[in-house]
């Protein structure tokens, strides 16, 4: 820090109005006040939904609602997009999206209780409050009910596998919740940072099938398509989106989080993003290019177009035994 340098006076206004800016964005470079920032975020999500064809008018969307920041923002944004109707004149693009997904698409929240003592209780409470605030039906699915044991018990003696085990079981629990809710799509709060981290992690593990796997398409009666509407938003943008609306709650961190490779990848990517802005977006774009060149894989799809099913539980899987049955063995 150089205290000898004079720091020039600078404008602190929004690029679009005279209010004070809360965020600086790039590509294109702009500073936005709270109102314009909220609108900007929601429009980028709307554009992604339309461009990717994520939601149709007859969809019932199961939102994975943990109560954390990403799923909170997801529920808020989807609620607004679906509720805003044709009178939302914020942009041409916004109106186009609303036309596409109105009038029948509706939301239901799915909350997974993994059974992590001292952590999940508070986030489940936050999730229930949010679902109630938006009048969205909520289904709570617990690991104990579904798998016969909570995560804390399942991890005894193998804590280093926490995120892998939890991730596998949570995906199954979310699918089960979506089925119970009669959902046609599952929406998760994965953001730009999460997605870029996943791309790099798959590369570091040498897991090409998972790198190119596309879970956005479905398979009748077997597999509910997953959508990630928050992909255009960074983790930082999501926190600002919530903070400026008074909707950010500093919830406890998962006690198992420190065991994850993801933490190291996150650190590495954030350093690269600082030095080379746009790194994360380029990483995701490269993954998408690879998908286009070699084609995507769908979970459980055999070469002849038939589906593999787990010998134990009958769920779709890529081998003989699904990941859930393997981690529960």
């Amino acid at each position, binding site marked *: *820090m*150089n*205290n000898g340098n*004079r*720091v020039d*006076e*600078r404008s*602190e206004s929004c690029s679009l109005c005279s209010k*004070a*800016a*809360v*965020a*600086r964005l790039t590509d294109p470079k702009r*500073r936005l006040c*709270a109102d314009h920032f909220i609108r900007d975020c929601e429009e980028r999500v709307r554009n992604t939904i339309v461009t990717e064809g994520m939601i149709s008018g007859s969809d019932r969307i199961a939102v994975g609602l943990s109560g*954390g*920041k990403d799923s909170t923002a997801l529920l808020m944004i989807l609620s607004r997009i679906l509720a805003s109707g044709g009178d939302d004149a914020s942009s041409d693009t916004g109106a186009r999206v609303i036309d596409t997904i109105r009038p029948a698409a509706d939301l239901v929240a799915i909350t997974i209780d993994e059974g992590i003592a001292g*952590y999940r209780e508070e986030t489940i409470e936050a999730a229930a409050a949010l679902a109630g605030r938006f009048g969205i039906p909520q289904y709570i699915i617990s690991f104990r009910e579904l798998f016969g044991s909570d995560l804390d018990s399942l991890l005894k003696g193998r804590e280093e596998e926490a995120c892998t085990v939890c991730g596998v079981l949570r995906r199954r629990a979310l699918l089960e919740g979506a089925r119970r809710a009669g959902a046609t799509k599952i929406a998760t709060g994965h953001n730009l940072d999460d997605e870029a981290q996943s791309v790099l992690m798959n590369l570091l593990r040498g897991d090409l099938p998972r790198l190119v796997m596309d879970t956005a398409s479905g398979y009748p009666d077997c597999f509910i398509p997953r959508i990630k509407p928050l992909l255009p938003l*960074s*983790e*930082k943008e*999501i*926190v*600002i989106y919530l*903070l*400026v609306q008074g909707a950010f709650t*500093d*919830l406890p*961190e*998962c006690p*198992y*989080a*420190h065991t*994850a490779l*993801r*933490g190291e990848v*996150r650190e590495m990517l*954030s*350093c690269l*993003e*600082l030095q080379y802005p746009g790194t994360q977006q380029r990483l995701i774009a490269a993954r998408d290019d690879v998908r286009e060149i070699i084609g995507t894989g769908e979970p459980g799809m055999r070469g002849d177009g038939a589906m593999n099913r787990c010998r134990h539980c009958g769920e779709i899987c890529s081998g003989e035994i699904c990941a859930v049955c393997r981690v529960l063995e």
Partner: protein
Amino acid sequence: MMLYDPDHYGMQVILPDKSRHTLPPDPLDIHEILLAFGCNPTTVIVIRNGTVVPEDFIARGDDEIRIVSVSHGG
């Protein structure tokens, strides 16, 4: 980095770990403050006197700069 006698008038910087530091009141680019304290600007939010601000804003006088980490596991 030059820290300041906390008994004197100056900026208050509160880091994600809740520790407090006092800096001289001279105008400073918040981005520089973040880097000086080892905070990656892509992973934190800056709250100046209770309001969220971009990190290219200036802090001065007795401003309170609260730095909030955006990353949470789980």
